[in-house]
C-alpha cells in the first residue's frame, strides 16, 4: 500500500497530493498538473516541501521526523518518458548495470536471461540505445528496471514517445507483463483510454490538486466536476441548472427529475447515446470513421448543442432517431 501526502511549491502552483493506493493505479491530468512531479517525489528524485510518503509500512519521506531515503534505498522502479537508457552502454550493459545488487555471478546470469526472455529483447542486446526503435528502447528500459527487482514500479507516460500504431500492441504486451510480475504500479498518462486499460484506481489531477479519485470505471462514469469530466475525455458536456427540483438542460432540450440541490452541467458518454426508434429525430453533421467504430456528431431536432454518438463501424446514416437515456446522464456539480 502506497500512502503519499505531501506538498511542493512551484512558482505557478502548489502541488498538494493525497494518494492511498495499491495494485494498478493511474494518475491522469493535463500537462504541467504535477503528475510527473508526484512520481518523482515518490521515487525520491525530487523532494517535497512537507509531508509523508510510505510504502508497505516503510517510511520513505517524512518532513516532521526528517526522514528522506535516497532513491537507491527506496526499491522503487521508475520508467522515464524518454526511457533514460545509458547512451554509452549497450542494452546488455544497461541491464547488467541494474544487477549490481546480486553478487553471485550465476544468479546474475539467470536473472538476466529470465528477464531478457520475458521482455523479448534478446535480439538487440549488443546494440546501443541510439540504434533502438521506440518499442525496443521501452522494453530495454523495462528489463533494466525489472532486474533491479523493485517492490513498486512507477511509469511516466510510457507510451507517449511511441508511434501511434505501436501503442496498442505494446500496451497489450505491457498488460501481460504486469500480470506476470504482479507488482503494485502507478502509471502517469494523458490518455483516458490508457488509464482505463492499465489501472483499477484513478486519480484525476489538475493544477497540483486531486480533482477526483476512485475506481477507474467509476471516475470515468461519474467525474462529478466539469474539469474532471473534460480530463476524463467526456466529449458531451452541456450547461445545466436545478430549478424547482428539476434538472434543466437547455442545450439538449431536456428537463429531468433531480435529487441534487445544484448542478452546473451534465455529461453523457457517446457510447451511452442510443440510435433507437424510441428516440428523437436528428441529423448527422459529421461522421468520423475509424476501423474500431464510427463517431457521429448529431444535432437532435429542437436542441441547440450537437452531441457525439458512437455508432458501429461502417455506419453511414445521415439522419435517424437518437435517444439520450436519462439514467446515463451524469450531473456535474463543480466547475
Amino acid at each position: 500500500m502506497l500512502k503519499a501526502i505531501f506538498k511542493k511549491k512551484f512558482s505557478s502552483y502548489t502541488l498538494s497530493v493525497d494518494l492511498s493506493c495499491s495494485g494498478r493505479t493511474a494518475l491522469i491530468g493535463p500537462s504541467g498538473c504535477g503528475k510527473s512531479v508526484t512520481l518523482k517525489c515518490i521515487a525520491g528524485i525530487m523532494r517535497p516541501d512537507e509531508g509523508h510518503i510510505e510504502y508497505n509500512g516503510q517510511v520513505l519521506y517524512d518532513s516532521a521526523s526528517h526522514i528522506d531515503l535516497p532513491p537507491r534505498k527506496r526499491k522503487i522502479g521508475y520508467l522515464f518518458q524518454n526511457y533514460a537508457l545509458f547512451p554509452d552502454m549497450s542494452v546488455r550493459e544497461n541491464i547488467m548495470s541494474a544487477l549490481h545488487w546480486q553478487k553471485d555471478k550465476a544468479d546474475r546470469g539467470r536473472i538476466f536471461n529470465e528477464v531478457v526472455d520475458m521482455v523479448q529483447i534478446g535480439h538487440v542486446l549488443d546494440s546501443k540505445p541510439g540504434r533502438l526503435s521506440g518499442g525496443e528502447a521501452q522494453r530495454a528500459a523495462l528489463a533494466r528496471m525489472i532486474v533491479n527487482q523493485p517492490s513498486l514500479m512507477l511509469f511516466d507516460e510510457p507510451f507517449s514517445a511511441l508511434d501511434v500504431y505501436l501503442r496498442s500492441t505494446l500496451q497489450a504486451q505491457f498488460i501481460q507483463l504486469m500480470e506476470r510480475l504482479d507488482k503494485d504500479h502507478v502509471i502517469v498518462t494523458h490518455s483516458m483510454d490508457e488509464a482505463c486499460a492499465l489501472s483499477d484506481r484513478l486519480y484525476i489531477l489538475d493544477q497540483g490538486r486531486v480533482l477526483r479519485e476512485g475506481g477507474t470505471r467509476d471516475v470515468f462514469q461519474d467525474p462529478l466536476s466539469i474539469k474532471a469530466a473534460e480530463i476524463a475525455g467526456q466529449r458531451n458536456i452541456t450547461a445545466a441548472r436545478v430549478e424547482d427540483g428539476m434538472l434543466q438542460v437547455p442545450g439538449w432540450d431536456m428537463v429531468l427529475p433531480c435529487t441534487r440541490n445544484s448542478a452546473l452541467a451534465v455529461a453523457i458518454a457517446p457510447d451511452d447515446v442510443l440510435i433507437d426508434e424510441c428516440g428523437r429525430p436528428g441529423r448527422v453533421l459529421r461522421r468520423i470513421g475509424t476501423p474500431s467504430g464510427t463517431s457521429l456528431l448529431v444535432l437532435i431536432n429542437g436542441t441547440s448543442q450537437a452531441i457525439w454518438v458512437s455508432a458501429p463501424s461502417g455506419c453511414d446514416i445521415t439522419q435517424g432517431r437518437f435517444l439520450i437515456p436519462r439514467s446515463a446522464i451524469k450531473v456535474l456539480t463543480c466547475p
Partner: protein
Amino acid sequence: MDLFPLWNSLRIAVLSSIIVFFLGIGAAYLARRLPRTVKGVLDVILTLPLVLPPTVTGYFLLMFLGLKRPLGAFLAEHGIRFVMTWQGGVIAASAVAFPLMYRTARGAFEAFNWDIADAARTLGRRNSWIFWRITIPGCRSGIIAGAVLAFARALGEYGATSMLIGYTPGRTATISTTVYQLWRTGDDMGAFIWVMINLAISAAVLLAVNMLERKQGGR
C-alpha cells in the same frame, strides 16, 4: 638552441590543465545545484579571469602570493614559493585557464539529460558511480573541448605569467615570454622559431582531439 622554454611551457601547461580539469569540472558540477542567485554571483567570480586583462590577474596573484603578503610569506616559511619560480607559472596559467574549463563543463552539464542520472539513482547506483560512469561520459565532448581550450590557453599564457614569475632563462622562461624577450632584443629569427613551435604544438593538440572525437562518434 636552448630548449628549456619548450620543456617549461609544456610542464606548466600540462600541470595547470590537470589542476583546471578537476577544479573546473568540480566547480561546474557543484554550481549546478546552487540556488540561481548564488550561482549567478559565483559565475561572475569564477569567470572574471576570462575577461580581465591577464596582467590584472597577475597583479591579484602577486597581491596574494607575493613574498611580503601574509599568504606568500606563510608559504615561503614552509618552503613553497610561487614568485619567480616555474611552479608560480602553473598557478598563473591555472588562474587564467580555469574559466574556460569551468564555463565549458558547466554548459555540458546543463545540456546533459539528468533523467539518465536519476534513472541510475532509482536503480540503486551510488553517486560516485553515476558521476564517473554516466555523467562524465555523457558530457565528454564539452569536457574534452574545455580541457583543450584550457591547455591551449595555458600554453600561450603570457600576462599573468610574466607578472608572477618574470623571465629568467633556464629557470622561468616559457615559450611566450621567450618570444617577447627575443623580439625585444632584436632576435626576430629566434622569436619566429618559437612562434612556429607554439603553433605546431597547438595544431597537434587540436588535431588529436578532432581524431579522438571522430573515433568516439564512430563507435
